[in-house]
């Protein structure tokens, strides 16, 4: 089956990003296996929260979490930067985009881990995830989350030459991450509230984030967000199966 030039372009950007994501997940799983027992103790979580870190250090852990959960969201931004940049500047521009994106997420991610650790210690293994789920649901129904999600799709003009080009890409990366953080922060917080189930919850939250990022922008208002595209795919699949069976 032939592939359109646009599809080929999308694939060329997507593959390295997905490989990086997969590598991050392998590292997260390895780390989790090593850290597992430490994650199960309420007292230890409290202690970690008080120390301001999770596991062997908040920054590397959060960096891996961010890489595993949020890297795929960079695909459209990386495509935009690559398409609107001089070919000889592309590696530099993409690097700057990743640095800016990661920097914002690291700051936000560390803060969320600390808050999550403290909340877990305070509320315990049942109330903490329950409260986290409530925050996730309320936030994702809110117009503010939708507004952030809409802005997260923005693709601004970028300067082509010199320092202006670097600054534009840095600004774009930081803004992209900030809106992403604004839309998704409860999903980053929830794993930290789930103690021993952190890894499984993180995987679920990642799927939620990736699915939600596929949705088109819409007018911000209070609404029950449902994964419309996957729901339609499942519905159509079931309809086809039923039609065949009938």
């Amino acid at each position, binding site marked *: 089956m*032939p592939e359109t*030039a*646009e599809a080929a372009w999308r694939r060329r950007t997507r593959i390295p990003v997905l490989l990086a994501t997969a590598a991050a997940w392998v590292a997260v799983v390895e780390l989790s296996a090593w850290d597992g027992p430490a994650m199960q103790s309420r007292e230890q979580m409290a202690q970690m929260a008080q120390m301001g870190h999770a596991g062997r250090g908040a920054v590397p852990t959060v960096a891996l979490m961010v890489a595993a959960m949020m890297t795929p969201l960079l695909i459209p931004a990386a495509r935009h930067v690559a398409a609107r940049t*001089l070919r000889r500047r592309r590696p530099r521009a993409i690097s700057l985009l990743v640095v800016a994106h990661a920097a914002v997420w690291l700051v936000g991610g560390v803060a969320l881990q600390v808050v999550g650790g403290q909340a877990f210690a305070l509320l315990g293994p049942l109330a903490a995830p329950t409260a986290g789920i409530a925050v996730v649901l309320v936030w994702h129904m809110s117009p503010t989350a939708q507004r952030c999600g809409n802005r997260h799709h*923005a*693709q601004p003009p970028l300067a*082509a030459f010199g320092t202006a080009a670097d600054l534009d890409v840095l600004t774009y990366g930081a803004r992209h991450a900030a809106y992403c953080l604004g839309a998704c922060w409860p999903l980053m917080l929830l794993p930290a509230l789930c103690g021993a189930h952190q890894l499984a919850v993180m995987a679920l939250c990642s799927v939620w984030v990736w699915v939600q990022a596929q949705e088109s922008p819409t007018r911000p208002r209070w609404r029950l967000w449902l994964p419309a595209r996957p729901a339609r795919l499942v519905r159509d699949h079931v309809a086809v199966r039923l039609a065949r069976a009938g």
Partner: protein
Amino acid sequence: MTKTRVNVYAGKKWADPVLWYARGVAAMQSRPVDDPTSWRFWAAMHGFDQSLWETLGYLGPHDAQPSRAVVKQFWKQCQHGSWYFLPWHRGYLLAFERIVRAAVVDAGGPAGWTLPYWNPFATGESKLPPAFRSNAWPDAGDNPLFVAQRYGPHSDGDVFVPPGQVDLGALQRRHFTGVSTGGSPGFGGVDTGFSHGGPVHGELERMPHDQIHVLVGGGDPHHPTLPGLMSDPDTAALDPIFWLHHANMDRLWEVWNKSATGHHDPTDAQWKNGPASVGDRAFEMPDPDGSTWTYTPQDMKSVTALGYDYDDLTPTGSPQAARPAAEEGVAPVSSDGEPELVGATSQPIALEGASAAGDVQLDRTVRRDVAAAFTATTAATPADGAEDAGSERVFLNLENVRGSADTTVFEVYVGLGADDSPADHPGLLAGSIAPFGVRKATQPDGDHQGQGLTFVLDITEVARRLHLDSSFDVDRLPVRLVPLRPVRAGAGITVGRISIYRQAA
């Protein structure tokens, strides 16, 4: 039995196809907006903006709108900036034709009624068809084909399509689809999902489709932010001429398919099966019997299979002027090389007054590559605008074009000196832009997140001329935007960046 769509100029002013169309429109216009066979319901399927409709008088406090589920299923469905532009509109026209035909039959008209088309490229037919020009018609009451909010290219009520402002260059494109990354978006548009307003329009969509929309609609001379109905995608289908314009676009798709053996529609599963195949909205239309018709682009490929044709398949409606594309053999649907940025402006440009200008800074290395490619192919300059397979192509991109109204048509000149008059240098005209959809694309929570539209002009011939004149081998290439009529201060029309791309064909 095959039904034939005919040129609206083929008969007298109120020939049967036009008169029965008017009667069908009148019947639809008499129905409430929540009736799936009503005029306004069908217009809202193309696009809907409650505030704009209310301002223009098409929605009042006593209008009961359809349920949220019905709105979600049918309204705001038009495909723009997408390779679904042509197939979605073909289905939309067919379904609309069935609704009108049912109304025509109810009124005692012919069961074989078909929608006429308006081809403003035909000699002597650039003016709005006569039956649409005034409020008088053979039956009693107001002429349903007349709308006051149709202002024309100079926004003075004289509605016509200036021949110099439109062209059929898109018909020369070899590939149906292209890219959104600076090069050709292709004849039919870029590979997208469901796209109720993508940022980069396909070549036929940009010219002449968008152009005719805005030239016909114009803007309200007394309220500069208010568009003529045709100028804005959210109101365009309220104007009865919309449907004849789109019948002509549909005809041009058939012209393109028939004009060269290398021209063919995409074979990709995602195009054929439509956006629903990947979980997006399906293309759905109400039928006169109350059922819903769901279709895919694959269903729209053959007009013969769909049971209709056109009385004329020459591009301009005059065989002498027809310019068939060169035989190119069987070309893949999309195989142009990856576009590469050559240079760009450093600051946004605000379009106000009689003109605006900016300098595109060119990258020395890439610019020399372009010049070398031109030098190598100088002897092979394509004749008559036909696309030259295997040669270098150059594109001008007007990126992130934003504005509060879609009504400003402007020409783009490349390489024009600061003291030069555009009229003296027609060879430096890169093309004309009608920002159809720019108001919507500027809304921060719309489909474009306020980032505006990007227009792509093929400037290969202009760049080649500049190269031969040694004017392309410069660090900065001036670009000037010249609106058809001066743009008022505060109109808010800005171009985020002007860039130049090269692409191997």
